[in-house]
């Protein structure tokens, strides 16, 4: 049984959002709770739908004259998770509690839809989960899915129109009020939040110089829609971001809509908007923290001497010749014979090989080892000077299976962590290895193994650069054997490597 206190709680929430500012309920204790609620709702609807009072007369009644207890209806649906999240069973229960027959949902939408959307965005007694941050964009009811998706799309289109209108319009109030009714404000905030999160993830190490984060403190709180409007103009909310942000935004909207694809005209609207910005020279604004004018002065420019036709003296002296570095190739006492066997320059790999399982992990590892052997023969000492003995999976030969498993475990635990303490952890786990060795293993073995896995198991989803990706397993041992089975080796075994034969002397 809902009490007047519940209704008053709704009122205070609305006032927090900026509605019903001057509304006072005379003597709430003695009034019936649903009447209190109706009064609050009436005031709210007046502000949200100015001039449309006729379509929502209060108190609400069905066609046959039976009164609807909106307070109960609202409370029941909210308890069920809100308008969109409510399951079919919850709707039935809500209908019963409000003493109604069938058209509960339509009635709810008409009278309480706006209220549902506004209140949904506010924190409840229980902490809101990640999904709730995007208000009214969840979709649980299967039967309603198509309708809901269509509505979401229209909502998005409407929201985008509204934001654009607000940004462009001169008079604040008109533009603002026009769209607030349909819950556009929280939707817009939610989308912006998601886009910045996505941008932040895409950008480099810190959101410093490389990504332009528009962090607007005044927009964080939702106390006043008016402030949002001012911010929208000042910081160019959404509409005015060009280029990759459009793709970001579109992606985010698509994700939020689940599997629903945005209408192509929606995309078109955005791109058009962004291009409009780009074409006007006033639109060339950016939010970089760095200066955008090139400074001039002795602290900035290089000193460029005047041209002189006289060449510099002593260009053959040691000070200059040192810059030529150490010549590594061609070798002085080059073994010309080794060159005869070599493949033509620019040749790639053969299309077919005689391995039992061509292109398998084992086949690839064999051919790589074969290549390295040929290279070692050809390069002679240069093979070592250029560091080829420290490239690729040769490194793994100095690591035991256990160490490798340990490395992977530490990566899995700490790579995604926001504390950025991965390498501290690795150093702690591998006290006998220097950091240089760990880094070398990481690039020469660990990442290669991950790529090997991705190439065979998730070929559509490959990434050489996402450090947080740790969902994979090693295919085979260091020689590529048994790649189709994953062994959990408990013992460390030293085996003589067959891909590292010492050919020198």
């Amino acid at each position: 049984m809902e009490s007047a206190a519940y209704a008053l709680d709704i009122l205070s929430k609305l006032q927090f959002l900026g509605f019903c500012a001057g509304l006072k309920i005379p003597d709430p204790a003695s009034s019936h709770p649903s009447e209190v609620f109706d009064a609050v709702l009436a005031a709210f609807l007046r502000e949200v739908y100015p001039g449309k009072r006729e379509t929502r007369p209060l108190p609400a009644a069905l066609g046959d004259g039976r009164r609807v207890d909106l307070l109960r209806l609202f409370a029941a649906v909210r308890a069920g998770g809100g308008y969109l999240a409510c399951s079919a069973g919850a709707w039935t229960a809500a209908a019963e509690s409000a003493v109604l027959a069938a058209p509960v949902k339509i009635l709810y939408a008409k009278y309480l839809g706006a209220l549902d959307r506004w209140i949904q965005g506010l924190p409840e007694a229980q902490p809101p989960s990640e999904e709730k941050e995007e208000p009214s964009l969840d979709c649980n009811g299967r039967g309603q899915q198509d309708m809901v998706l269509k509505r979401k799309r229209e909502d998005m289109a409407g929201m985008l129109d509204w934001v654009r209108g607000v940004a462009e319009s001169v008079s604040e109030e008109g533009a603002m009020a026009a769209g607030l009714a349909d819950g556009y404000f929280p939707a817009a905030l939610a989308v912006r939040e998601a886009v910045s999160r996505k941008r932040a993830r895409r950008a480099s190490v810190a959101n410093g110089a490389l990504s332009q984060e528009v962090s607007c403190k005044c927009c964080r709180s939702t106390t006043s829609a008016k402030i949002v409007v001012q911010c929208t103009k000042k910081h160019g909310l959404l509409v005015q971001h060009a280029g990759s942000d459009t793709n970001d935004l579109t992606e985010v909207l698509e994700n939020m809509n689940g599997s629903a694809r945005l209408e192509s005209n929606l995309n078109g609207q955005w791109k058009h908007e962004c291009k409009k910005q780009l074409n006007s020279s006033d639109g060339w604004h950016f939010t970089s923290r760095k200066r955008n004018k090139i400074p001039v002065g002795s602290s900035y420019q290089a000193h460029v001497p005047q041209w002189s036709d006289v060449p510099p003296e002593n260009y053959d002296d040691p000070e200059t010749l040192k810059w030529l570095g150490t010549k590594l190739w061609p070798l002085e006492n080059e073994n010309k014979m080794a060159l005869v066997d070599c493949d033509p320059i620019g040749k790639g790999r053969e299309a077919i090989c005689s391995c039992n399982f061509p292109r398998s992990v084992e086949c690839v590892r064999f051919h790589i080892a074969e290549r390295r052997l040929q290279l070692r023969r050809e390069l002679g000492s240069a093979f070592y000077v250029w560091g080829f003995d420290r490239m690729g999976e040769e490194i793994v030969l100095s690591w035991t299976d256990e160490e490798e498993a340990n490395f992977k475990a530490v990566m899995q635990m700490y790579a995604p962590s926001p504390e950025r303490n991965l390498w501290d952890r690795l150093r702690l786990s591998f006290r006998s290895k220097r950091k240089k060795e760990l880094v070398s293993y990481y690039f020469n073995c660990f990442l290669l193994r991950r790529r090997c896995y991705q190439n065979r198991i998730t070929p559509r989803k490959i990434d050489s650069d996402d450090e947080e990706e740790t969902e994979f397993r090693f295919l085979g041992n260091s020689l590529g054997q048994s790649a189709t089975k994953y062994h959990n080796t408990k013992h460390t075994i030293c085996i003589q490597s067959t891909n590292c034969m010492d050919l020198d002397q």
Partner: protein
Amino acid sequence: MAASGEGVSLPSPAGGEDSRRRRVSYFYEPTIGDYYYGQGHPMKPHRIRMAHSLVVHYGLHRLLELSRPFPASEADIGRFHSEEYVSFLASATGNPTALDPRAVKRFNVGEDCPVFDGLFPFCQASAGGSIGAAVKLNRGDADITVNWAGGLHHAKKAEASGFCYVNDIVLAILELLKFHRRVLYIDIDVHHGDGVEEAFFTTNRVMTVSFHKYGDFFPGTGHITDIGAGEGKHYAVNVPLSDGIDDATFRDLFQCIIKRVMDVYQPEVVVLQCGADSLAGDRLGCFNLSVKGHADCLRFLRSFNIPMMLLGGGGYTIRNVARCWCYETAVAVGVEPDNKLPYNDYYEYFGPDYNLHIQPRSVENLNTTKDLENIKNMILDHLSTLEHVPNAQFHERPSDPEGPEEKEEDMDKRPAQRSRLWSGGAYDSDTEDPENMKSETNELTANSILKDDSNDDL
């Protein structure tokens, strides 16, 4: 001008129209791949090692001279950077508590430009390679020099920026300026080449041309109206682009603008920053170039037969960076490598296709024809202001005595070439390029490094 200055369009045979070999000198520091910026940081020196592995496994080293760079000293780096900044870099350690927080703030190290273990040796190798490359060109030891560890174009005189600490490009250009009156710098990294532009903003001895994404993108400079200041006015060119530019669009714009630049500026040497973050699918970039499209810039420039330096730069999808720089090394030496990658130490990075070339993505090219026309016209207008007074630019000191070699050469617009310390030249006696001045004044000497290899395979 060089007859083959029209450049080559895709697809092209080995080396393009101008398939004559070039002498290419390549700098590589074998420890460069061991440097690590830190957890989660997108800049990975390991990519240079991957590129090197591909270069060698394709056999391209047989057409290169390979050298380990001399590490630049504090004094060498101080030729451009401020003394305090260099001291700071030299003494900065990877231990965060040892750093002076004021210095950290002042020199902009920290997040984007972290202090990592071996930061200074890394900078020394990068700068040493680029300065070495410049000296090679100055001495005439090579036609094209390469340093993939260089190209760190954001570093400023007294601060780090955008993952760059020491601006090896500025140091290299300062070295080139000893022997070349005019240096052209071209930057095809997706980010504006602000460090280099700023360093040479007020001089006409260096013209900087940068193609980059502009608009809500790092570093924020590079507006089309930034054209230089003082004596350097009109000697900075900025080509601001939008997301998704593709091979064909980029090539048209690049060739059109660069051809005009070559005509009016007539540089004696070209430095090309080959930042690979303008490739499709880059982790931080937003363009849509394929490796072939990216390399077409190099191919076009190569056809002008001017000494050239190739430098690295950005590039954050490391498998594509390796592909790109390997392929560009091949273009430099005049070889068209097979698309099927040879088996190599980093083979699995390149799966599941294991091919050298990449496909552009299906993203929209936000650069409209109209935008591009506007940009092209504005830039050509800027450049035309240089044409009207060619002599004023080229002779700052009218009382300069002219060297004897100028009288011998019959060049209408091309000004005096500095005499080389050695006069090695083209290898093929029958040049395809009748306008190439070099073959008239040069002679083969015993010093030419790859003389024996000039008639080898292919």
